[in-house]
C-alpha cells in the first residue's frame, strides 16, 4: 500500500466502518430503541457515503445514500427502527462490501433488489408515524452580527443574499447601535438588519444561513404563521443549538478518528518483514556471542561486553516484536455474531451468542487460520447441538439456546472454548455410526471419552441428512487437521441433555517455536517441542532386535518408529548410543531414531522456498547460531508416515 494512495487507505477504513455498522446493527436487533446504536449506524453509513464519494467510489456512495436516508429518518424519530429494517440494512452492508471490491454493472444491479426491499420496509413503517410539520408562511427576524465578523471574513451582504434566495424578502437596516463617528473603528460592524421573509421556509433553512456566525451573533426570530403563538419571540443569545447540530449531522466524521497519536495502522506484511529482520538479527547476535566466547585470541573483554549488550537488546527486540503482532480475539469473535444471527434465522431457533475473554491476544496469523474451524464448530452447535424452542421447553430449559465462545490465555497457549447448552452428543448414535463404518468392532468396550474421539475420524457425521448448514464435506477431521497444522489440539466433552464443549488449545504465535534440536548424521534438525512426548535410549540390543520390524515396546504398547538416518539417507555411520524421540498428537505416537539430542532451542521459523514446497516432511527452516541451517520437521506428516508404516507392518504380520 502506498502511503499516499488515499483510495487504498479508504478501503481499510471502509472495512472497519462496515464492521462497526454490522456490530451496531446486530445489537440493535435486540434493542430496537437504543438511540446510541441508531446514531452509530447512521454515522457509519454517513461517513462511508461521504468518504466514498470523495475517493471515487460513486456506486458505493449512491447505494449507501439510501440506507443513510433511511437511518436518518429513524434517528429523527420519523420512522421506528424494526427488525425488518435491521435485516435489510445488514444485507445492504454486505452489498457495500462487495461494491468496495467490484462495482461492475452486475453488482450494481444486485443492489437494486436490496433497495427495493428497503423501500418496502420504510413505506410500511412510515405509515405509523409521520410527524406533521406545520407549513411556515415566513419569519420575521432581527439580527446583529458579531462586531469583528467582517474583519474575520464574513460578508453581511452575502448573508442577506442567502436570505433573499429563500423567499420574498424585505430588509431594513437597524442603525441604532452605530456609535458616534469618533468612536467608530473602520473594521468593526455595528449595523443590524430587520428582515421579513415570506414563503415555506423552515427554521433549519435560516439556521443554515447563519451557520458560521450563530455562536456569537444576536438573533431574534418570530414566526409569521398563525400556528405559533402570536408575538412569540425566540431570543437567541446562546449558541443556536439547532443550527449547530445540523452542521454536525451534515459533516459528521463517523466513529471518532480522534486521538490520532494513540495507534498506528501498519500493513501486516511490513510487520512480517520486521519479524524477519529481527530473526536474522538474533542469528547474527548468536554468532557474535560465539565469537566473543571463542577465546581464539581475537576476543577481548570489550568485545565480550558488547556481545552481551547486543544479546540483551536482540532478546528484548524479539519480545517486543512478538507483542506487535498480537491482536485481541475480539476481531475474530465479532464475525461470529453475524453468523449466529443468520443461523438463528435459517434454523428458526432462538440462539444467543455470549463471548468472553475477547481481549485475549493471539498472533495475527493464528487468528486468521482459526476463523474457518470456528465457523464450522459454531455451525455444528447451532445445527446439531441446540434444540428448537419447543423441545427445549419440554426439557425444562429456557427457550433461547446459548452458545458461549470464550478465550483465555494459559502460559504459551490460548484456550478457546465453544460451549452450547443443547442436547449434547448422543454417544449411542456415535457408537452405532462408528460400528456401521467399521471403525469399532461390535462389542468392543470404549470409554465415553474414546467414543467422543470418533467424531474426529474422516468422513464421520452423525447428521442424519445433509443440511444447508453442516454436512457439506467439511467435517471435524478437517477441523482437527487445521488445529494440528497450527500446532494446537482439539478436545471435546459432552453431557447428554446439557450440552457440549469443544476446547481448542493454540500456541500464542507461529513465528517462534520451542524446538528440540537433534542431530542425524552430520545434519541438525528441529522437532517442535509441543509434539515431543519423551526421549528414550535405543539400546544396541533393541536396535539389533528391531532390525526390519521398526516397532518398540513402550510400557506394553507397540510404537512404530522410523530411523531418520534411513529416511534422510545419511551416509555416516550411526552413533553408538542412538536415541528415540517419541512424538505424538493425542492418540497417535511415532518414534524417531536420532543420533544425538542436542537440547531445547527457541527457533524463529522461516518458511521453505516455493521450490521446496512439495517437501512436505519439513515445516520450515531455521538458522542456527553458527549460521548453519536446520530443517524443522513437520510432526503431522511424520505421524501419518508412521501410521502407514505400522499398517504395512501389521499387514505383513
Amino acid at each position, binding site marked *: 500500500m502506498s502511503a499516499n494512495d488515499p483510495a487504498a487507505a479508504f478501503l481499510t477504513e471502509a472495512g472497519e466502518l462496515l464492521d462497526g455498522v454490522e456490530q451496531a446493527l446486530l445489537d440493535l436487533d435486540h434493542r430496537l430503541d437504543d438511540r446510541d446504536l441508531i446514531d452509530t449506524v447512521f454515522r457509519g453509513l454517513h461517513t462511508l457515503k461521504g468518504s466514498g464519494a*470523495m475517493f471515487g467510489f460513486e456506486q458505493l456512495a449512491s447505494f449507501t445514500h439510501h440506507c443513510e436516508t433511511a437511518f436518518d429518518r429513524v434517528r429523527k424519530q420519523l420512522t421506528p427502527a424494526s427488525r425488518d429494517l435491521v435485516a435489510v440494512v445488514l444485507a445492504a452492508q454486505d452489498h457495500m462490501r462487495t461494491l468496495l471490491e467490484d462495482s461492475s454493472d452486475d453488482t450494481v444491479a444486485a443492489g437494486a433488489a436490496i433497495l427495493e426491499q428497503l423501500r418496502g420496509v420504510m413505506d410500511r413503517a412510515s405509515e405509523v408515524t409521520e410527524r406533521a410539520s406545520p407549513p411556515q408562511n415566513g419569519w420575521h427576524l432581527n439580527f446583529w452580527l458579531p462586531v469583528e465578523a467582517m474583519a474575520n*471574513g464574513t460578508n453581511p451582504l452575502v448573508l442577506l443574499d442567502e436570505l433573499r434566495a429563500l423567499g420574498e424578502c424585505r430588509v431594513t437596516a437597524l442603525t441604532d447601535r452605530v456609535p458616534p463617528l469618533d468612536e467608530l473603528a473602520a473594521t468593526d460592524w455595528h449595523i443590524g438588519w430587520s428582515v421579513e421573509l415570506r414563503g415555506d421556509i423552515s427554521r433549519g433553512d435560516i439556521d443554515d444561513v447563519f451557520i*458560521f456566525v450563530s455562536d456569537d451573533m444576536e438573533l431574534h426570530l418570530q414566526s409569521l404563521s398563525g400556528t405559533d403563538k402570536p408575538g412569540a419571540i425566540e431570543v437567541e443569545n446562546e449558541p443556536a443549538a439547532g443550527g449547530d447540530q445540523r452542521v454536525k449531522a*451534515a459533516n459528521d466524521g463517523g466513529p471518532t478518528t*480522534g486521538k490520532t497519536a494513540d495507534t498506528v495502522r501498519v500493513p501486516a506484511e511490513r510487520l512480517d518483514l520486521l519479524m524477519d529482520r529481527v530473526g536474522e538479527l538474533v542469528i547474527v547476535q548468536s554468532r557474535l556471542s560465539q565469537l566473543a566466547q571463542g577465546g581464539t585470541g581475537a576476543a577481548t573483554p570489550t568485545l565480550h561486553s558488547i556481545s552481551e549488550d547486543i544479546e540483551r537488546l536482540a532478546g528484548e527486540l524479539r519480545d517486543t516484536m512478538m507483542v506487535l503482532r498480537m491482536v485481541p480475539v475480539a476481531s475474530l469473535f465479532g464475525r461470529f455474531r453475524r453468523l449466529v444471527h443468520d443461523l438463528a434465522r435459517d434454523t428458526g431457533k432462538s440462539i444467543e451468542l455470549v463471548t468472553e475473554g475477547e481481549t485475549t491476544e493471539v498472533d495475527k496469523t493464528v487468528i486468521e487460520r482459526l476463523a474457518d474451524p470456528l465457523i464450522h464448530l459454531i455451525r455444528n452447535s447451532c445445527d446439531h447441538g441446540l434444540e428448537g424452542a419447543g423441545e427445549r421447553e419440554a426439557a425444562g430449559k429456557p427457550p433461547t439456546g446459548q452458545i458461549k465462545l470464550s478465550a483465555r490465555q494459559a502460559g504459551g497457549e490460548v484456550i478457546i472454548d465453544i460451549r452450547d447448552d443443547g442436547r449434547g452428543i448422543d454417544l449411542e448414535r456415535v457408537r452405532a455410526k462408528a460400528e456401521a463404518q467399521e471403525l469399532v468392532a461390535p462389542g468392543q468396550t470404549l470409554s465415553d471419552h474414546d467414543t467422543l474421539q470418533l467424531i474426529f475420524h474422516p468422513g464421520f457425521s452423525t447428521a442424519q441428512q445433509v443440511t444447508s448448514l453442516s454436512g457439506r464435506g467439511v467435517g471435524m477431521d478437517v477441523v482437527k487437521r487445521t488445529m494440528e497444522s497450527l500446532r494446537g489440539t482439539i478436545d471435546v466433552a459432552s453431557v447428554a441433555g446439557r450440552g457440549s464443549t469443544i476446547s481448542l488449545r493454540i500456541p500464542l504465535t507461529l513465528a517462534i517455536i520451542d524446538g528440540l534440536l537433534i542431530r542425524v548424521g552430520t545434519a541438525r534438525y528441529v522437532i517442535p517441542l509441543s509434539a515431543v512426548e519423551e526421549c528414550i535410549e535405543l539400546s544396541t540390543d533393541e536396535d539389533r532386535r528391531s532390525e526390519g520390524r521398526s516397532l518398540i515396546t513402550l510400557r506394553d504398547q507397540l510404537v512404530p518408529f522410523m530411523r531418520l538416518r534411513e529416511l534422510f539417507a545419511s551416509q555416516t555411520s550411526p552413533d553408538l548410543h542412538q536415541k528415540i524421540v517419541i512424538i505424538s498428537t493425542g492418540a497417535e505416537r511415532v518414534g524417531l531414531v536420532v543420533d544425538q539430542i542436542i537440547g531445547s532451542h527457541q527457533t524463529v521459523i522461516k518458511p521453505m522456498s516455493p521450490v521446496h514446497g512439495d517437501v512436505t516432511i519439513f515445516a520450515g527452516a531455521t538458522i542456527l547460531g553458527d549460521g548453519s541451517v536446520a530443517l524443522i520437521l513437520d510432526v503431522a506428516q511424520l505421524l501419518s508416515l508412521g501410521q502407514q508404516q505400522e499398517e504395512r507392518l501389521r499387514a505383513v504380520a
Partner: protein
Amino acid sequence: MSASILTVDDSPSLRMAIRIALTGAGYAVTEACDGLDGLSKSRTAKFDLIITDQNMPNMDGLSMIRELRSDPSQCGTPIIFLTTESEESMKQQAKAAGATGWLVKPFVPDQLIRVARKVLGR
C-alpha cells in the same frame, strides 16, 4: 473574473482532491504545503478565500490564521478551517483566531463548493 482560492494542506492527495473540486466549480486555485508556505503565498497575491488544514509541518493552521489576521492587508479575507469532528475545541479556537467558517472532514466535493459559494457569495 473567477474567485481565487488558496488551499493550505500538507497532504498532496487532499490538496489534489480539493483542487479538482474547486477548479471544477470554476474557481482559480493556488496550493500551499504548510502554514509558512501559505503565509508567503498570501503576501505575494491577494486571495478571495483561504482554505486551511490544522496539522501541518513548519506552521499549523491556527498559527497561520493568527498571523494572517494580524496583517491589516488580510482584514476581511474569508478563511475556512478544515477540521475533524473530534476536534470540536479546535473549531472554537479557529473561530477565536479569526476563521470565517469551518468544514468538517471528511467532506464531499459538493459540501466544499457549497461552503466556498456561501462565503464568497459567488
